[in-house]
């Protein structure tokens, strides 16, 4: 499970690799990923073709706009939950550091429009460093 979370990629796809691999090695991983993506991939393109056929209708665009806003809300809910989990496990300066990283990542990748890969590569070492310093602090307190 953890591997699927720390490697970049779509969570469901990474899990499919993991489960397929456990069941039948490399072939299982390939089969699981294709099974997850091929059918829905063709389906979503067919839906988009149907949308293009009716793209002129303002009502269709209005409904999709509402659904897009709701989807953005669902993503925000995931972000909020992850934040709550992370802060539940982290204290003091480490929590403040994580909050600053999250906020600056948002500003750079969102309103400021910096390239996302650059933002990720810039902050990954800092975030991991903070996580290690926090873990070491916990171990030292445990010993003392």
């Amino acid at each position, binding site marked *: 499970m953890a*591997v699927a979370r720390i490697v970049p990629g779509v969570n469901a796809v990474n899990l499919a690799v993991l489960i397929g691999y456990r069941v039948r090695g490399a072939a299982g991983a390939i089969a699981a990923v294709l099974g997850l993506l091929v059918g829905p991939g063709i389906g979503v393109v067919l839906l988009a073709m149907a949308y293009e056929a009716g793209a002129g209708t303002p009502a269709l665009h209005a409904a999709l706009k509402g659904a897009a806003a709701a*989807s953005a809300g669902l993503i925000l809910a995931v972000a909020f939950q992850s934040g709550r989990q992370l802060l539940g496990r982290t204290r003091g300066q480490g929590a403040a550091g994580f909050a600053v990283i999250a906020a600056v990542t948002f500003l750079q990748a969102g309103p400021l429009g910096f390239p996302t890969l650059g933002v990720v590569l810039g902050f990954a070492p800092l975030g991991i460093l903070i996580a290690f310093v926090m873990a070491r602090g916990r171990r030292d307190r445990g010993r003392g």
Partner: protein
Amino acid sequence: LKDDPGTLLALVAVFVPLSLASIGGGPAVLSEMQHQAVLVHGWMTEREFGDLFAISRAAPGPGALLATLVGWKAAGWPGALVASVAFFAPPCLLVYGALHLSRRAHGSPWRRGIEAGLAPIGIGLMCAGSYAVLKPDDTGPLGWTLAAAVAAGRLWRPGLSPLAWLGLGAGLGALAGG
């Protein structure tokens, strides 16, 4: 533009780096995907991107199939195939490699440190993705309000299917805009 090998190469050049930046899942790279598809390459308008995003989230399967739709919009079915492979294959290879290594590293402080250290980046990127979708001029305060309300509702009633919230959003959108 279709059938142009240059477009297929551009899709690879866009989606391979994106796939490696998707810390915390597909929504993390929404804003960059929009930027590349709309502003850099002009494969679609911001409005079309928003509509395709909604379609990808409402359709069965991972919402990240938006990558497939961007490829399709840029270069038809070949584009859909190329974008999908470019976006989904690199992380799969990484997971596969990590699975081999993790037999030894199970429960190591490395794994936990990386997981915790990357989490805030994923959170910031997800917020940026939501921002990218809500930003277009014609969305207005109604979209932001709806998104905030759905986020609160989702946290309040986690058991309710996400599709229920999408349906509610589509209904309200049709009422407001139709």
